[in-house]
């Protein structure tokens, strides 16, 4: 169960990173960066 969850999480994190680098507007890039923070904390099981 945990592995499936973390795999989905890693995939969403990957999409966010892709979004961060493909977006051209700084406001969209900032949004992607903000979403990355909690995803990272969860991926490493910190919070």
């Amino acid at each position: 169960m945990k592995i499936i969850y973390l795999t989905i999480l890693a995939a969403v994190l990957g999409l966010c990173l892709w979004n961060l680098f493909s977006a051209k507007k700084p406001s969209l890039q900032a949004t992607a960066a903000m979403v990355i923070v909690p995803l990272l904390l969860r991926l490493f099981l910190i919070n």
Partner: protein
Amino acid sequence: MKKHHISALIFLAIALVAAGIAGASFLSMRENEYIAKGPGVSEVKMLSDWFPALAGSPGDTEVYILRSESSNDDAASMLVLGGTHPNEPAAFVAAVLLVENAQPSAGTLYVIPRANNSAFTHNDPQEGSPQRFTIKTPDGDRVFRFGSRATNPVHQWPDPDVYIHASSGQSLSGNETRNLNRGYPGKADGTLTEKVCYGITELIKKEAITITVDLHEASPEYPVNMAMVAHPNAMPLASETVIGLEMQDIAIGLEPSPVNLRGLTHRELGDFTDTLPVLMETPNASQGRLRGKTDEALVLTGIDPWYVKAEKLGRLYVPYDGNGHPIEERVGRHVAGIAELAFTWTLNNPERPLEFSGLPSYAELLDTGLGIWLKAPEQ
């Protein structure tokens, strides 16, 4: 490199720094605070010594044993649980105060200050709770964590939609699956929370614990407050204890353990073991629904204008004025309750006494504050 790639790298760097700072703060909650071994402590064990499956898990926790010299296998014993709910700080601090000060002269005292160890490692989401609170001692500050009501979801996940209590089949809302005080008597192959319950039940059975005291706090608007809740088996002991406390001017109610609310210490430990279980509640604004700003000061003083207002509107079950309910008062109630339980037990069972000295009285704690009863932090 394109211009928007450079800005993406800058945003990524900011995100990594933010995650690093937040991560360090969250991880710091996993470090146990200092608890001194008081003069009465004869041994410190781990809960996994009674239930080895807990070894190395975030549910394993210290068990402080304070054995009197005269204690033998037949002697009376008391188990005190602090930190069943780590967002109820007086329960935790009272258990620490016992470990650091109590000196048993008859019988054995077992104390588990962090009963739900995992729940100390995080805060409840969206509550704005402080991570820690500080109590000043003559030799320096003592810092205690203010945790969550429930096991850390990082340690036990996912929650079911409906939590089904293992031994009764009672259903509760899904997040109660991580509430230690809904999991008793526990399940050896259950969730982490159920395993901790099982470990505590094993300790009670194997050590033949005479009296089990589960320390709590409750929101001022919660009906069971400033009260002792007792299993039917413990009712004679608890009712005499409550009279003893009232004679010390400590207002306290007595509540029978509800028959149909399952998984709680005062129900299951009485049904499944020979111990006499009681639970105590003190008023804690910092866990209440009506509270205003939630900070360390609220944890320590209980001063909150909204609770004063709620009391005037008749919405509370405890008296509430501008003086709040300071942590000295709440810890004092718990410590006085424990001392009175031991006193009442000994009065009725002089052949199996349970006696400890070194503890402050309720009046003394109100007078001196908590600081002088807590050991200086280790340098």
